[in-house]
């Protein structure tokens, strides 16, 4: 019965992963990926892997979204200025 929390976390992770794929706009996907990262950390904690959970938190909560959004910003900044070349 202690597995209930694991099952809930697993299902949430699966749902978040599916959402992350189906959301096609990179900004919105970055938001979902941030949630996915946090949910993965919770899942890892329930699987008794706090070390992995901690690194997932460190990477997933701020670092990856920051990288993704900086990339989006760079790409958009180009687009606003001149539009696609072709």
């Amino acid at each position, binding site marked *: 019965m202690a*597995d209930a929390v694991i099952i809930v976390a697993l299902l949430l992770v699966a749902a978040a992963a599916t959402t992350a794929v189906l959301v096609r706009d990179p900004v919105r996907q970055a938001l979902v990926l941030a949630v996915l990262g946090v949910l993965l950390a919770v899942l890892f904690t329930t699987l008794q892997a*706090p*070390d992995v*959970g*901690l*690194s997932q*938190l*460190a*990477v997933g909560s*701020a*670092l990856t979204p*920051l*990288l993704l959004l*900086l*990339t989006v*910003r*760079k790409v958009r*900044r*180009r687009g*606003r*200025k*001149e539009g696609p070349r072709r």
Partner: protein
Amino acid sequence: MNRRIRLWLVAVAGTALAALLVAACLDLPDFGGDRHPYGDRAVDASLARHTANTVASVNFDQRAFDTLGELTVLFAAVVGCVVLLRQTRDEHRARPEPEPVARPVRRYALAVLPVALLTGLYVIAHGQLSPGGGFQGGVVAATALHLLYLGADYRALERVRPLGLYEAGDAVAVSAYLVTGLAGLIGATAFLANTLLPYGTFNTLSSGGTVPLLNAAVGMEVACAVVVLLARFLDQAVEIEDPTGKGSGTP
């Protein structure tokens, strides 16, 4: 290949692969099973060397050679990003304008920054005892530094970020890991052998032989690497202007 054919290919191949993998899952040992021979040996080996966090022992002692590879992957990615995101000959830099930040946000950022740095150091230092270690702590510390960009100003971040120093620190940390490994080869039995230093008292900061040293090297490497990595992306997103947009940086 147009989109529809690709979708069909993915659907058919994906279904076949899914069938194979699901069938394989049914053959796997049940989730939560009791048979973990390697894991049990690893726990014993860790306790024998007075390392309270078995995961740290696996990472920095038993499978330290893997961690060397992991460290190098990170190092290579940093060097790669430095090369890929360099300022090319046809690009130029524009100073970003300072951006307005609401006062509570600024205050929060400046107040939390030292807390986060301390937390990062704490997580690194307790790597061989409690959950955490060089990697996690390094990322926390490096991310914390970017509170300056998020909560204050890009220029404030640039002032505390002499990039050359961080790049050198990255390389020095990798060298430190390697030198510790070589010391094991020269002074003891094998590369990365953890037999040179006393194992200390169980569950104290200095326990585990070379584990804390390697842990610290990884922490330094990761912190420097993340700072350099983010710096390259920030450069691209904030400062570097495209070749075609010469002169008129902003609309």
